[in-house]
């Protein structure tokens, strides 16, 4: 929007006309000390926990420690210009961020300010960053799927709308890759995505944004950034900011998916703040409430029923449930899941996707460990056809793992064991999938069906992926109607089964892989 000078002065005139002068009453305090982003303020007897405090020079802080004579404030943004004796004002507001549809396609910082150079965000709505999660009465059980688009996950560790599914693994095991694939796969499904980057390099964030743009996934995505160079306070609040933006969609009867990448760094930031505020350190020097920062955050990811949506929208939206699905990411050190923060988050979430360095390096990507990964509620939400066909895959892999040790002495094995091992090898191969190439329900079903019915058993292991990609492109061109039908309903009946079976047989006759 381009304004000429006369319009600007008109606008200002109008604002001045409408400006009502009222007596401003507030509580004031004086800065006593400034250390590493923590400011101690004397006075402010009426400050609230988590209240925004106004400092000179237009900077803001958040009151975290309320003591008898002073308030411990953590600065949001620059604090270098603050000196002892500065006056601090109470604003009477808890920290709020802008929310709404206008944020989609934008990159914002932890306070909701745009940082993508695309101008101001046109929204009048705002929401406090800390809110209490929906109560028991407001909730509904998880029974609709979120398709991640990865065979290994959708078939074995399904995620439902409103579920919290942890992605856990060492560095460089493809945690972010899964998250990005999940966002790309939501294109056209109506699920809005929020990607919260905490304590990451700006270059990695720029990469994610570029990849999402390339795959046309930015239009339904909000990216919240608190990079490694930003203050610990901003890294601490970024997940809550993203959560509030996601809750807007949930409360308006829509579905949203939020990814916290990653909560380990948020816990580090909180540890830093807490230690500087001189709160007593506990295990691994984390403060006593490090469990609560994650539990209250993840509890806000939920599915709420139509009655609640109607109530929250004042009757504007009727008969629609809302959901916020969370995919928190935790980075482990040397595969140690029994460290403090990983165990906490594992116990809070409804299951975890466990990624392993060993698998990753041996070329199994996504490096999902099918044995340790679980989804506690996703089974109820799985698409019928995937549920039917995915069960076999899970079983094959479980049996394969038991027998894998024998695989080296394959010559001495009896027929059935050898068959199981061979099936396992082929299924493992089939579970590999390229990045940025999520599959639709129909494509996944065809692949799983081929594995279950033994079409892969006569192939060389190396040929499995070529076979799959050729089969899928064959299905796309020759069986478009059948594929569309599966994608639409997701049912599994004899008609569909025969359809897939015959199609695969016809494809094998072409031997074009």
């Amino acid at each position: 929007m381009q304004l000429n000078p006369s319009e600007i002065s008109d606008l200002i005139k109008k604002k001045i006309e409408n400006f009502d002068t009222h007596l401003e009453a507030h509580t004031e305090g004086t800065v006593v000390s400034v250390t590493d982003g923590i400011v101690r303020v004397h006075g402010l007897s009426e400050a609230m926990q988590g209240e925004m405090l106004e400092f000179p020079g237009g900077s803001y802080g958040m009151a975290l420690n309320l003591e008898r004579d002073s308030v411990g404030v953590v600065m949001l943004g620059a604090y270098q210009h603050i000196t002892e004796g500065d006056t601090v004002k109470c604003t009477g507001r808890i920290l709020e961020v802008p929310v709404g549809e206008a944020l989609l396609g934008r990159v914002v910082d932890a306070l909701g300010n745009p940082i993508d150079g695309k101008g101001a965000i046109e929204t009048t709505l705002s929401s406090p960053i800390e809110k209490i999660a929906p109560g028991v009465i407001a909730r509904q059980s998880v029974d609709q799927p979120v398709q991640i688009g990865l065979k290994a996950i959708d078939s074995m560790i399904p995620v439902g709308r409103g579920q919290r599914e942890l992605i856990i693994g060492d560095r460089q095991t493809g945690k972010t890759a899964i998250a990005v694939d999940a966002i790309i796969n939501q294109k056209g499904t109506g699920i809005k995505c929020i990607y919260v980057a905490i304590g990451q390099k700006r270059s990695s964030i720029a990469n994610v944004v570029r990849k999402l743009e390339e795959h046309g996934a930015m239009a339904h995505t909000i990216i919240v950034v608190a990079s490694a160079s930003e203050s610990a306070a901003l890294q601490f609040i970024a997940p809550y900011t993203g959560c509030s933006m996601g809750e807007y969609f949930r409360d308006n009867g829509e579905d949203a998916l939020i990814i916290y990448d990653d909560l380990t760094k948020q816990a580090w930031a909180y540890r830093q703040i807490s230690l500087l505020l001189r709160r007593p350190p506990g295990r691994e020097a984390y403060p006593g409430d490090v469990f609560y920062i994650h539990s209250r955050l993840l509890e806000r990811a939920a599915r709420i029923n139509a009655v609640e949506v109607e109530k929250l929208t004042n009757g504007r939206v009727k008969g629609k449930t809302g959901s916020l699905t969370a995919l928190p990411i935790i980075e482990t050190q040397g595969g140690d899941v029994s460290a403090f923060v990983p165990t906490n988050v594992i116990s809070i979430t409804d299951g975890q996707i466990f990624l392993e360095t060993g698998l990753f390096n041996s070329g199994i990507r996504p490096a999902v460990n099918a044995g340790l990964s679980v989804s506690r509620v996703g089974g109820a939400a799985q698409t019928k056809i995937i549920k039917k066909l995915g069960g076999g895959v899970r079983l094959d892999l479980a049996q394969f793992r038991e027998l894998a040790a024998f695989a080296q002495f394959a010559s001495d094995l009896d027929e059935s064991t050898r068959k199981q091992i061979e099936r396992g090898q082929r299924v493992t191969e089939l579970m590999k999938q390229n990045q940025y190439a999520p599959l639709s329900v129909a494509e996944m079903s065809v692949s799983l069906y081929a594995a279950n019915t033994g079409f892969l058993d006569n192939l060389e292991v190396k040929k499995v992926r070529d076979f799959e990609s050729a089969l899928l492109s064959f299905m796309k061109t020759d069986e478009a109607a059948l594929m569309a039908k599966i994608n639409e309903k997701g049912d599994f009946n004899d008609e569909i089964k025969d359809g897939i079976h015959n199609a695969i047989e016809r494809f094998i006759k072409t031997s074009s892989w």
Partner: protein
Amino acid sequence: MAELLTLARPYAEAAFKRAKETATIQEWAEALKFLSVLAEDRDLLTIVDNPRVGKDNIARLLLDICQDNISTEAKNLVRLLIANGKLSLLPKISALYEEHRAEDEGYVNVDLFSAYPLTKAEQNKYSAMLEKQLHKKVNAVVTVDKALLGGILAKAGDKVIDGSIRGQIHQLAKRL
């Protein structure tokens, strides 16, 4: 600063309670004011802070200066503070004592800043307004501050009521 206040609080509370019991609130207030002026005296501080000077000597010196200006009980407070090495708390104790007193007597000390000197009538008008707002009797001290440009600004403790032109310009600047 905050920590000193915390340390001074029990002393101030004790002094005030004792003063109330013995109905010597005014005397105690004067004694504490006198003592806090003493405690901030530069020459005296060099002696007090000198580790070579024993506590007994400091006590004798201080009490000599006080002579009959303060009551025996106030002198005992001085001895106690010297024994505990907390003589520097005296100004804080005095300030906290005043707070206790104001609260007890149901009035608040208000600093009234005005851009122009106030007439007696205006001052009374503002005091009445503030009394209504704060639900307490107001003890106003007026200071002229040209930087306000116009209007008045009242400060009661950490509560600020800003009716100045400067405050309104700031508000306007924020809105724009």
